[in-house]
C-alpha cells in the first residue's frame, strides 16, 4: 500500500530526509539468517559492530603509516591531515591512556571511569531533552494534523527554528532560566536540557506529522462513512499508521539530543558532562595527545547507547511496524 492518493498530508520535501532511513531501519532484520541458531543470530549485530570498530582502527593506523607526517597538500591546501603522534595518536596509545589515572592526584579515577561518569551525566540530561523534544514535537504534529491553518502557520516556523545557531541560543536560554521564578532553582543542567530538546523536537514534529497524515484516503473515507469522531480516527487509524514514520524520527531525536547536550555543555560550560570534558581536555592536545580522544570516544558511545535505547522502544511497538509506506 502506498500513499497513492494525495491526501491533505502530502509529504513536505523536508520529510523525505527523515523518512528515507526508515526503510532500512524498518526492514525486519535479515530474514535469511533465520536458519541460524538463536544465540548466534543475537550475536551477529554485535560481531558486525566489533568488526567495524576493528576495521576503523586498522584504517586509522593505515593512514598513519601511509600518509607522510606532514599530511598531503595540494598547493597551499592540506587535503589529508598531519599524521604525527601529536595529531593522530596510535590506537594502542589512546586505549592505554584510558586505563591510566585521570591525573596524578592521589585517588584519581582511571580515565575510562571518569569518561563513563561524565557520559552518565550527559546521558541523563539527554534523556530529559529527548522526552521534552518528543512531547513538544508530537504535540505540534497533532496540532498540525488537526488544523490545516496550524500546519500552514507552524510548519514554516518549525523549519525556521532549526536555522537559529546554538551559539546564539545558549546564552539566551541560560539568561532566561536564571530569571524565571518557578519555585525551584534553575540548575545549569536544565539550560542544557532545554537547548538540546530544541534540536530533538524537530525530527519528531516532522516525522509524526508525516506519519499522522499517512493513512490512505480510502481508509479515512471509511472512518468518515462510519461517522467516527476525530479522536476515534486518531486513535484507531492515524496513531497506528504513524508508528513506522515515528520510530526513525524518535531515533534521530535521540542522537540530536545527545549532540545537543554535548554542544550545549561546551557552550554554557556546565560542569560534569562529556562536552565539558572535551573542552577541558583540549588543553592537553599537545602535552598528552591521547587524552582528548577519551571524551570523544565517550560521546560516540553515548550516541550509540541513546539510539540503542530507542531501538528497544521500537521492539515494543513492533505490532505497528508493518511497512505501510513503500518508501
Amino acid at each position, binding site marked *: 500500500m502506498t500513499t497513492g492518493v494525495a491526501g491533505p498530508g502530502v509529504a513536505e520535501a523536508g520529510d523525505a530526509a527523515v523518512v528515507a532511513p526508515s526503510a532500512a531501519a524498518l526492514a525486519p532484520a535479515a530474514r535469511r539468517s533465520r536458519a541460524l541458531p538463536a544465540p548466534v543470530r543475537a550475536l551477529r549485530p554485535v560481531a558486525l559492530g566489533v568488526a567495524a570498530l576493528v576495521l576503523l582502527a586498522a584504517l586509522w593506523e593505515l593512514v598513519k603509516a601511509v600518509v607522510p607526517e606532514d599530511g598531503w597538500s595540494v598547493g597551499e591546501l592540506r587535503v589529508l591531515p598531519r599524521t604525527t603522534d601529536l595529531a593522530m595518536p596510535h590506537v594502542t596509545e589512546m586505549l592505554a591512556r584510558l586505563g591510566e589515572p585521570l*591525573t596524578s592526584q592521589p585517588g584519581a579515577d582511571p580515565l575510562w571511569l571518569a569518561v563513563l561518569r561524565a557520559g552518565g551525566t550527559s546521558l*541523563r540530561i539527554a534523556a530529559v531533552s*529527548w522526552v521534552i523534544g518528543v512531547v513538544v514535537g508530537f504535540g505540534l504534529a497533532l496540532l498540525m494534523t488537526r488544523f490545516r491553518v496550524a500546519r500552514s502557520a507552524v510548519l514554516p516556523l518549525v523549519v525556521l527554528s532549526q536555522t537559529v545557531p546554538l551559539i546564539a541560543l545558549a546564552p539566551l536560554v541560560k539568561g532566561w532560566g*536564571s530569571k524565571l521564578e518557578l519555585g525551584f532553582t534553575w540548575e545549569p543542567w536544565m539550560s542544557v536540557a532545554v537547548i538540546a530538546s530544541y534540536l530533538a523536537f524537530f525530527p519528531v514534529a516532522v516525522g509524526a506529522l508525516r506519519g499522522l497524515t499517512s493513512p490512505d484516503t480510502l481508509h479515512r473515507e471509511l472512518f468518515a462513512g462510519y461517522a467516527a469522531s476525530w479522536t476515534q480516527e486518531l486513535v484507531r487509524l492515524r496513531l497506528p499508521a504513524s508508528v513506522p514514520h515515528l520510530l526513525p524520527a524518535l531515533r534521530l531525536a535521540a542522537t540530536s539530543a545527545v549532540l545537543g547536550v554535548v554542544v550545549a555543555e561546551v557552550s554554557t*560550560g556546565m560542569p560534569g558532562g562529556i562536552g565539558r570534558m572535551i573542552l577541558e581536555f583540549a588543553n592537553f592536545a*599537545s602535552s598528552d595527545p591521547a587524552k582528548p580522544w577519551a571524551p570523544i570516544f565517550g560521546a560516540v558511545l553515548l550516541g550509540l547507547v541513546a539510539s540503542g535505547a530507542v531501538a528497544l522502544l521500537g521492539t515494543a511497538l513492533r505490532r505497528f511496524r508493518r511497512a505501510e509506506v513503500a518508501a
Partner: protein
Amino acid sequence: MRNTTRRAGLGALGVVAALALTACGGGSDDQAGSTGSGSSGDGGLTPVKLQLQWLTQAQFSGYYAALDQGYYEDEGLDVEIIPSGGDIVPQDALANGEVDYAVAWVPKVLGSIEQGADITNVAQIFERSATLQVSFADAGIDSVADLEGKKIGSWGYGNEWELFAGLNKAGVTDFEIVQQAFDMNAFLAGDIDAAQAMTYNEYAQLLETEDPETGELYQPDDFSVIDWNDEGTAMLQDAIWADAGRLADDAEYADTTVAFLKATLKGWMYARDNPQEAADIVTAAGSTLGTSHQLWMTNEVNKLIWPSTSGGIGLVDEAAWDATVEMALQTSNETGATIITADPPETAYTNEYVQQALDELTADGEDVEGADFAPLEVELQPGGN
C-alpha cells in the same frame, strides 16, 4: 490482541519517560554538589552569584579558596561560583542581572560598557598581564619588531588587544594572524611562528610536552618569549565587576559588595600563603587539570597579584587604568576597529568598596600587599600530571 499490544507500547513509552524523569532528579543532585551551595540562602546568608570567565581552574583559586575556607560564610554570604563556557560572556550575564558579580578582563568590558552595560570594576585582582607571545628560540623572534612578516597566533574574541597594541607601537604592519585553538599543536607543527600563551596555562602546556628531538620535556631555553608587561602594552586583566546601578541605589548590595570583596581578597591571600592547598581546592571543585599544571597555574597567578604595588590587592591603579583605556582607544585590530571610540564613564571603576574591604582586612592584621611574597619553583610533569 490488538489492544494488549498497543497497551504494551504505551507502557514502554511510559517507562522510558519515568526513567528519564527519575534520572533527571539524580542529575540535579550531582550538579548541586559540583557547583557549590545552591542560591537559596539558609541561616540568613545572603545569596551571591559569581560568574567566572572560564572553566574551573586555578586562575580563580582565590574565589574557590574563599568558598572552601568558609570566608564567604563568615561574611554572611552564600556564594555560588558559576564557571563559564564557550559562549557565556560574564559581563553580559552581569549586565542582564543573571549574576551579582563577574570576573572579566578590563579591555573586553570597556567595549561592553560603551555598548551600554552599566557595570563597574570594584576590584582589580590581577595587577600584571599574563599574556605572552611565544616562539621557538631558533626562529629569531626576540622583539616585537621581529614579528614582521610572521604568522602570529591569536585566540581572538577580545584576547588579541595587547598583541595589536604591541604591533602598532612597534610599527609592524606586515603579518598574518592565524586563529589559534586551545592547544599548542599548530605552533609545535610550525603553522604558527609566534603563538599566544598565558603564563599560567598555555606556556605550561609547552613545558609539559615532550620535545621529539631530545625525548625530554621542552625547556624554557627552547623558547623566546615576548612579555607585554615588558613591552609596555600590558592591559589590565582579571577584575571583579559589579552592577553600577544597584551599587548606587541599593545600600544592601553595596554592603554585600564590601563583604564579598573582603572574603575574596582573603581567599587570594590564602592562595598566596598556601599554593598547594589552593591548587588542591580547585581540583576538588571539579577541575581535571593535572596536579603539577594546577600548582603551576596557582603559582603564576600569584605572581600576577603579589607583591601588590598599588597599595593592596584589588585597588585599581589609576595609571594602569588610564594606560589600558588609552590603548583601548588607540589600538586597531586587523579590521581597523578599536575597542572603544570615547572615554569610558566615571563609573567604569571605583576603589570605594575595595578600600573599605582592605581597611577591614588591615585592621584584622592581614597582609594585603604581600611585599615578602616569594613564588614557588614548580616542576611540571609530562602532560601536566
